[in-house]
């Protein structure tokens, strides 16, 4: 039986605010970017010339763009891998805590409420080569920390900042996943002579695999597209382009380099990537993981 509404206009009216927002902030700019990708525009936006695919051709013949892709891959997979493993470890520990369980869980979820830029600034201060406590402490240990000069160190810093925020989110899902594993399975395994370590890897971890896979995709998407704030607040893509991910490069080429056409072409490439990610997400995440 289906419910029938006599009003023809009301549903559209109710959807209107969301549709307007989607149009103004998503569809229109996307269309603009798409259009702009085929033009060359002067820095002041006063004149533009249609140049066909030239923006894309120069983009894909630019070694820096490939470097940016590599940076993005290294960054994203580091964030996803670290974020998932640390969160899983924390969730396993928090699941075993008996006293003050709620306090631990609340504190572990908190970082998720921190805005990306603030998280970036926080880590930027901690690691600042001249005044950051972590940087000083590293110096005592003999590590010469200066992420303004050392590209690898800059990468480590943005990975830490971006991971730190994502751990809370992953933690929440892992904890829920762990609590959904029936106790009797663990008990059966312990009667079957499996050590706690073995129980985790042969019973708990496989049962968590739907959660893990979901989080992997979500984390990759996060690291790909949602870490602009963190990078801008810590390294601004530098030194050089060693932490300029593809999303960051769109911003820096467009708004700092004022190459609006090239920047637009990059966003079209990114849109294409998002499309692929979405297909993957729908294809595999919605799929029931069978066990």
């Amino acid at each position: 039986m289906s419910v029938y509404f006599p009003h023809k206009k009301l549903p559209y009216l109710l959807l209107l605010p969301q549709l307007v927002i989607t149009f103004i902030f998503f569809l229109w700019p996307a269309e603009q970017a798409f259009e702009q990708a085929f033009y060359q525009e002067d820095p002041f936006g006063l004149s533009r010339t249609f140049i066909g695919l030239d923006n894309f051709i120069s983009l894909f013949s630019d070694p820096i763009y490939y470097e940016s892709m590599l940076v993005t891959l290294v960054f994203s997979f580091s964030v996803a891998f670290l974020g998932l493993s640390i969160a899983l470890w924390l969730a396993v520990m928090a699941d075993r805590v008996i006293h003050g369980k709620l306090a631990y869980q609340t504190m572990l979820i908190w970082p998720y409420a921190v805005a990306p830029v603030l998280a970036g600034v926080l880590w930027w201060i901690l690691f600042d080569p001249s005044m950051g406590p972590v940087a000083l402490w590293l110096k005592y240990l003999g590590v010469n920390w200066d992420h303004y000069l050392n590209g690898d160190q800059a990468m480590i810093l943005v990975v830490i900042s971006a991971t730190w925020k994502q751990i809370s989110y992953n933690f929440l899902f892992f904890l829920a996943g762990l609590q959904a594993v029936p106790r009797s399975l663990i008990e059966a395994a312990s009667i079957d002579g499996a050590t706690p370590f073995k129980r985790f890897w042969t019973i708990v971890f496989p049962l968590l695999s739907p959660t893990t896979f979901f989080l992997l995709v979500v984390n990759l998407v996060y690291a790909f597209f949602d870490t602009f704030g963190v990078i801008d607040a810590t390294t601004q893509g530098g030194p050089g382009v060693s932490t300029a991910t593809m999303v960051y490069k769109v911003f820096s080429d467009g708004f700092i380099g004022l190459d609006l056409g090239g920047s637009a072409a990059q966003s079209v490439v990114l849109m294409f990537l998002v499309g692929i990610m979405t297909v993957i997400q729908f294809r595999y995440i919605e799929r029931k993981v069978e066990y």
Partner: protein
Amino acid sequence: MTDIILNKIGKTYPNGFHAIPSIDLTIKEGEFIVLVGPSGCGKSTLLRMVAGLESISQGDMMIKGQRVNEKEPADRDIAMVFQNYALYPHMTVYANMAYGLKNRGESKNVIDDKVNNVANMLGLEALLQRKPGQLSGGQRQRVAMGRAMVRDPKVFLFDEPLSNLDAKLRVQMRIEIRQLQRKLGTTTLYVTHDQVEAMTLADRLVVLSKGKAEQIGTPMELYSKPATPFVAAFIGSPSMNLLPAELNDQGIKLSEQLTLPFEHDFRGKLVWGIRPEHLEVSDENDADFAMRIQAVESLGVETLIHGVLEQSDGASTPLVVRLSGPHTPEINSLMWLTVPEHHWHIFNAETEQRLSES
């Protein structure tokens, strides 16, 4: 030869709740012991203490002469079948059964032999490559048993293994479990709340109530000589008629008008009981008392007649009579009954213990 000894075993939870005050039980090798009682009586807790899933607060637990109080479940050489089967959902039936052997470091050939052997015994050969999600309830139950059997443990523990099955399958599995246990000769501890299951499976029963063992004995001992009113009411279906009474010089006084002649040294309040199947229909002249019929349940093979003890003062004490074969007495009519003395069960109302034979 004794196999498992529970010596003053007790369980106190951290919040101070005494789940089990103290239980003594000696189990012989190959014996099938059923722990039975209503929910919350501590039967599952006791089983889990034997398994090592629940810590033991006091007393000693011995398996084959070894104290196992502090031993991990894996080191006790036991196998357990859980109520929800607890099969590993991501593993095939084969992997489920092989898991325990693998953890023990058995070689591939040995594992293969043992798993196939047990699978044959339980008729699981065709299902070995399936996952638990693709099995029916009865098949899962069988796999859970197979997983327990394959390790050839010293003790089987069953925690209400049949409660998730439908009635017909339950009867079938009950018989199968009994036959398997006889064949393997493995000492077994079995928890259930179903007294029929308990009676049919057990060599000896332990009736538990509020963490205390009310009575330990063979099914027939419990049926014919229940030690307490609780056991009397729990064993047998429908349960025994238990009437408050008093013993005086004339006999057992059930009400102002009704006293059954009886001789005993005891004087005071008691509980007088008779099983529904031991009440006999008679003529008005020979009858001990009459029952006013209120409801009739006809099951074909037997008929259960519910009513109240007919008394002039209007007090109503419910009674159940069980007659074999079909009967169609009229509702609200009187039914005359005799109560043969050798079927009486008499308990001291205060101590709740069976009155010793006079």
